[in-house]
């Protein structure tokens, strides 16, 4: 099982942190820092595997990492995962990111961290590898993106207008009004008719 996935830059600033095993917030931060220091010490031409730091459980866990330009991608796994397999999984993940963002860079990870998480969710679910086929992952993400585009595009205009009207008419916004995603569901506009 994958215990944690961490992405940080060359200075140890976390860019993506996903734990599949529960650690308290502070410990999570410490683990990221510890991992960073463990990984930083290593040259590029040595092994991509190392034992997890003492916080994450010592030699029972392996850190498997890859270094791309400014970013380190580190997967922390237990003994039931194959090291080389995970190494290639990182490659798949990064290639998928690259496809989705068109020349992915560190800033993409900062400004679209939600999207990065969605991509990761399609690759790893609850600590288990869900999908390793890049085309499949991209297809899933694109399906989701279509949603967003449609909302931000034409179909979003009436929704915006509606919300403007509502803001004028009502002293307080009703909380549970469901608008948007017109092409997915029957729009829930009944309050206005």
């Amino acid at each position, binding site marked *: 099982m994958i215990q944690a996935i961490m992405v940080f830059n060359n200075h140890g*600033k976390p860019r993506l942190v996903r734990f599949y095993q529960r650690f308290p917030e502070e410990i999570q931060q410490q683990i990221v820092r510890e991992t960073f220091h463990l990984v930083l010490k290593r040259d590029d031409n040595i*092994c991509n595997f190392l034992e997890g730091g003492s916080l994450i459980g*010592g030699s029972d866990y392996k850190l498997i990492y890859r270094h791309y330009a400014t970013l380190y991608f580190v997967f922390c796994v237990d003994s039931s995962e194959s090291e080389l*397999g995970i190494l290639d999984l990182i490659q798949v993940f990064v290639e998928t990111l690259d496809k989705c963002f068109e020349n992915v860079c560190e800033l993409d990870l900062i400004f679209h961290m*939600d999207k990065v998480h969605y991509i990761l969710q399609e690759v790893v679910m609850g600590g288990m590898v*869900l999908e390793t086929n890049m085309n499949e992952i991209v297809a899933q993400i694109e399906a989701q993106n279509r*949603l967003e585009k449609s909302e931000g595009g034409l179909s979003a205009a009436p929704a915006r207008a509606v919300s403007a009207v509502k803001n004028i008419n009502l002293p307080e916004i009703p909380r549970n009004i469901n608008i948007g995603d017109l092409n997915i569901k029957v729009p829930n506009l009944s309050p206005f008719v």
Partner: protein
Amino acid sequence: MSDIVEKTLTALPGLFLQTQTGGEAAAAKASLSSRLGRPPRHQSLTSKHEEEKLIQQELSSLKATVSAPTTTLKTMKECMVRLIYCEMLGYDASFGYIHAIKLAQQGNLLEKRVGYLAVSLFLHENHELLLLLVNTVVKDLQSTNLVEVCMALTVVSQIFPREMIPAVLPLIEEKLQHSKEIIRRKAVLALYKFHVIAPNQVQHIHIKFRKALCDRDVGVMAASLHIYLRMIKKNSSGYKDLTGSFVTILKQVVGGKLPVDFSYHSVPAPWLQIQLLRILGLLGKDDQRTSELMYDVLDESLRRAELNHNVTYAILFECVHTVYSIYPKSELLEKAAKCIGKFVLSPKINLKYLGLKALTYVIQQDPSLALQHQMTIIECLDHPDPIMKRETLELLYRITNAQNITVIVQKMLEYLHQSKEEYIIVNLVGKIAELVDTFAPDNAWFIQTMNAVFSVGGDVMHPDIPNNFLRLLAEGFDDETEDQQLRLYAVKSYLTLLDVENVFYPQRFLQVMSWVLGEYSCLVDKETPDAVITKLYKLLMNNSISSETKVWLIAAVTKLTPQAHSSNIVERLIQEFTISLDTCMRQHAFELKYLHENMECMKRVLPVNKSCEDMVVDASLSFLDGFVAEGLNQGAAPYKPHHQRQEEKLSQEKVLNFEPYGLSFSASGFTGRQSPAGISLGSDVSGNSAETGLKETNSLKLEGIKKLWGKEGYLPKKESAIGDEAEAQPIPQESVIMENVDQAITKKDQPQAHMQSKEEKEKQLLASSLFVGLGSESTVNLLGKADTVSHKFRRKSKVKEIIKSGETTSTHNMTCSSFSSLSNAAYEEDYYLDTSQDRGDKGLKKFSLNSELLDSELFTALPMVKKPSNCSMSAPSLFADNNLEIFYPFPSTPAPAAKEISVASSLSEEPTEHMHSDLMEVCSNETISVLSYKIWKDDCLLMVWSVANKSHSELKSANLEIAPAENFKITEQPECCLPVMEAESMKNFQHSVQMEEPFTEGTVSGFVNYEMIDSHSAQLEFSVTVSLLDFIRPLKISTEDFGKLWLSFANDVKQNIKMSESQAALPSALKTLQQKLRLHIVDIIGNEGLLACQLLPSVPCLLHFRVHADVLALWFRSSCSTLPDYVLYQCQKVMEGS
């Protein structure tokens, strides 16, 4: 800091500023790009402090936004993303958690997605807010929108409260049949999650897992493998039947039957292959039959793996692992060994690492592989990557033997000095200590290595290590002079270590030193105890030493004091520590003080060099008896142990409930205790105080710890001659190496050796010292190539031999067992015939016992089998001839009744001092009848069966068997069992019956089978009812005991019974109970009676009853929870019946 960080940080305010305007991510990026064009304005922003300020500012504005009622869900979505970012950086964003849940509940699809993501990142499984999410998840799981279902499944697999699983389980199970494969796949993984956190809740859907395994979509099948891998890891035997399926799947994958979509770098579904290989490895472990199923496909995988990409190596590695895990097959092992070579010799460091890992795994099965790759191993030992070194050391640890230990331990210590991680130190120190214990070549080396271990391992190592070390020193080995030398060496080395100024040793090391010095410094002549005491005193005064170590130190001083000439320092020490604030130290100081005053006593208490001798101590403190008695006389309260006080407290609480016997009984209990029990108990114990003393004095005895370090060390069979030499005379480590190498070089004739550079030579030196004793040759082959072939051959032939011998032994067993059954059969018939076949028979018996027969013996034995069987074949005809007349006039009418009675009377004549029931017939036919009676013995129920032969002919092999019944423990009483029953005779069988659980009534059933003369066998079944009363015996106790027992029982039952006129008086009712139920009347007080009985073997039941007009109030108590109910039922039956 790099430009990126600066840019990022300068961009942050821009990012955050848009919160208020409700900007979108796209806008953020747009503004960002414009900002990036400019040079960073504030250099100061790069500092950690500035960043914190900025984020805190942002957080407070976010807080205001999310809690404002006017915030739209869309804005909220933006806020959530920002909160996630802040939280990732380590800032507390807990105020937003509830809003994340709200967003997931109320938002539209996009907002919901962010809400779910935020929830799964913010919360954990036990978070209280998570319960608020359950309804949303249930709603979304029922949605018709695929995206919503997907999101719900994803969040379930990330975090879900365990106790709420039942709420969503049926919905998720339903999703296993969904038409979309992505839904099915996610549902499988969600179920996997449930299986991890609450395995018993998903037990019922194992069949559905199988369905998922057979799913038409490969992705769903792959997802189900996660579950199977986990379940098989826990219990491989339950899934052996699936081996075929897994093999078929793997075959299809390897054979390229999957769609091209699943290929990764033209390797078909590599991750799926890895998973399957792992499962097969687990299934085939130690199981030949299962392993045989997978040999083909493993071979195929090994063959197909063309090494063009990383991921093929991943598959290959798994394959090798599997091949070595399952039941071995020589061809596969050979191929796998070759593959390991590919890894080890690869220039890629990752592969090399995995190669070492594989070697570590297989080295115990095949040490020759290490020899093959010794040069690579040496290289890895000096590799700059610490993890490579560690893996290499792990490998070396597995191949350590008495000859290479010094080098290997030296390497390990070197690594130890470099590493700082605590778990690595603990791990390595443990390994070194274990190796040293097992293989240490000589005393000096042993002590030095242990010193290194203690000083490096310090206080993190396992406490067993110093304990074992001290025990080893104290107990020694067989050779007394050797022991003394070891101790002497230890003392000397510690004294020199303590002489070094300004060195800090770990506390544990100091403790070890102080114990050794205290115990054994008398062995050193020149070092007078005074000098040692001075040193210890100096340590004691050191502030950096923990109080625990100080106690060790002062104990050492105490031990040395009797041998010291002058006592100045000791007195000073006493003075200083009797006023110490540490109570423990003060106590030790006082002890020392008083002992010091009484030198005679001190010498007796602390004998020199006797740590292992047992001292006789009066542990019961019987010498205090007089003192105690005096105190008691003066009115002191007697001492009560803790449990007794507890008990009294309980019984005093009972005083408060107004039940009839609580008071009087507890009072009687008290009177028993108020006698000076303390003293009598004390003197009782003091009688055998010597024994208890023996057990308690020896503080260092660590029982149950295996002594590992023998004089010999561990010498495997294939040990070399060099090893012997090194072993025989302990020589310093360098010379050992040199000698090894010398010999190795002289024995090696390869011309290449001369041309090797100096560096190479050094490496080979190391190699030869490391791998000495591994191969079966007496020399160490440096190139390791000449002998690999022979190694392989040997290995192969060995495996074959094993298989062959296994087969032959199994056939031996088969033949033997068939022979023995044959001979048994022959034996029986032989017996009936009463012919003189004894000789042949004995031969047969012997034959069946002897399982290691050679073929020649087999042949000689065969005719012997034939002989008796021939005889038995002819037996019936012989028999028939003799008894022809008796045979035909078979009586068709049953035997006369008068006869039966006489039979019965003969039976009852048997002496029985116990009560028994009347004889009754349980079954009969025209030939035999079975009569039975019960004897109520004190300790069990004895059932006697008499089988009477009513016919006029003999019956053969009449036998009676009782079927095993639940609740009863039935044991047959041994008695002579005549195989032939003569006409009109009878035969007795006895069974003792015990009840295991109380119940009202049960049946004991069995059958009689017999053989008539005309050799048709018949069987007659019968059954007898046994009731609880058969197992109830009176319990003869006194009223006082009754009172004690009554209080100690927790299970009670009360019932009122109406009595008939005739028995309205107490005595008559009692009498009925006594007679019918076999209860013992303990006492009668007024209109109340006490009765006691026990259920065999020893479950007591107490009964109190009171007569009130015509109502009988019964009150039962017992240690068994169900017994009172049953006894009550019997009482009711008896009272109503009479």
